């Protein structure tokens, strides 16, 4: 079984089901990407894995442990880190305080972890006394990811990390994500920029109307003519 195995997820926000029998998996040291057209339920699938969406059916298993019934906070303790798409930093707190808040649930020292985050994102070290609200969009994303890394997660989930940033910043962010992958963490992300995301993906899930349509390695999906035609614009 995969490190993260969420199988047959069906559910939504109280009304009609948004995802149906949806299956998402991720391995440690790999990047898994969920892509698909607008309204396909990509973010919903990720939120379901994180416990922010009630599931009617299906199960979420992390490292062999069934966590389907746990709250998001409890899942954080189990080793999940989540970076929301919007409002993902504390704008009125300094960069350093943002990172400290990321480690809020951890007991004991967090200096090592913070040093590692600063190694990964050197600009944050420079700006650590500045308010997060004063940073540029790309730097804010770094704060947001850094905050999630402070719990030393085994699975890092990113909801559209490159939404609204310039192509240069996007490339830079993807590079950092690959660096994070190199530390052995499992990474799962939802991406709007499907073609670019699949180039760094070890595994891709194409969702359509809440269901799995294609599942393969990133490279294979990029090479698949049907996927190219339908989802990647030719």
């Amino acid at each position, binding site marked *: 079984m995969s490190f993260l195995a969420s199988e047959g997820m069906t559910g939504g926000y109280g009304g009609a089901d948004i995802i149906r029998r949806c299956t998402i998996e991720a391995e440690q040291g790999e990047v898994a990407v969920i892509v698909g057209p607008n309204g396909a339920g990509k973010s919903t699938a990720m939120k379901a894995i994180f416990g922010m969406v009630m599931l009617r059916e299906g199960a979420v298993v992390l490292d062999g442990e069934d966590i389907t019934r746990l709250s998001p906070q409890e899942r954080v303790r189990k080793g999940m880190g*989540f970076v929301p798409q919007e*409002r*993902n930093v*504390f*704008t*009125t707190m300094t960069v350093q*305080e943002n990172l400290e*808040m990321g480690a*809020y*649930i951890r007991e004991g020292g967090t200096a090592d972890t913070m040093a590692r985050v600063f190694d990964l994102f050197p600009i944050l070290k420079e700006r650590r006394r500045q308010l997060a609200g004063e940073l540029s969009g790309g730097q804010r994303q770094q704060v947001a990811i850094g905050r999630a890394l402070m719990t030393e997660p085994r699975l890092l989930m990113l909801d559209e990390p490159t939404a609204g940033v310039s192509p240069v910043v996007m490339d830079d962010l993807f590079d950092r994500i690959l660096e994070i992958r190199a530390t052995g963490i499992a990474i799962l992300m939802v991406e709007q920029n499907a073609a670019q995301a699949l180039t760094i993906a070890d595994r891709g899930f194409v969702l359509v109307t809440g269901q799995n349509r294609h599942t393969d390695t990133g490279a294979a999906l990029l090479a698949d003519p049907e996927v190219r035609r339908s989802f990647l614009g030719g």
Partner: protein
Amino acid sequence: MTDVANAIVLLTNFVIVPGVAYGSQLALGALGVTLVFGILRFANFAHGDVMAFGTMVALLTTWWFQGMGVGIAPLPTALIALPFGIVAAVAFNLSADRVVFRFYRRRKSPPVILLIASVGVMFALQGIVRFIIGPDDRRLADGARFIIKASEFKAATGLKEGLAIKLSQGLTVVVTAIAVTALFWFLHRTRAGKAMRAYSDNEDLALLSGVSPDRVVLYAWLIAGTLAAVAGTMYGIDKSFKPFTYFQLLLPIFASAILGGIGHPIGAVVGGFIVALSETAVTYAYKKFLRYLLPESWEPSGLMQLLSTDYKLAISFVILVVVLLVRPTGIFRGRVLS
């Protein structure tokens, strides 16, 4: 030259000293309102009466101490009774939360429902305070009255105008400085304080980070109750204790909080001083002040008072309305604790 000195002393004595003391009291009150707003997102209409409740307990304790002959002269006895007032105000806030507000919080009711519920709490608390101690005006101060007496000041400086600083005014400023410093240290240097700021800034993200909402709300009520009791008792020592006055204080307190940007602690303090100083400055009669500064032939005929002192309460609101129109977020961008 002495004329200028006399004019400055005159203004200090009648505008600045009372304004700073009153400003400190407003700042403490506004901090409480702003903290509750930052965390629970509603304007607490019961805050003025929580101040009255805490002060009442401090007053009852003062009487008890005086009866036993316990005191800390020359300082007012109420100062050692204050901890009892704080405990009472905090206990009231926590039980009001448990019995009233928690229910709506858990149901995620819109903030306006909590606001209206706070009106119910306000009614009941006004009844409780009057039931226990009645509606009358009572003195809270004992001990020495002045730090500097006007006559001593005149003798020491040789000026015609005297400067008097009441002990209560000095104490108010010192106690406020301590309370505000402690609060800012708590908010910026402790784990719990940072959690409060985080929750106020971005509730969802704070929950994700493992901040417990119940804990944060508990701190907010605790601090608000403490500040309310301190503000009320200092106001009572400086002036007097009358339940209705404390309800009326709610208006300038709200004005201060919004003026500085509601949810913003520094703003609350700045707002408190602006409101208090404008109240004293606008209602002061400048005739004598100008007589010192202007040549004799220019001497003003009227009192040179912008508005009569009866308009005190109104002034804070004129300022408030102007600020809301020009800069709706307040002087500092409000909404969150920072």
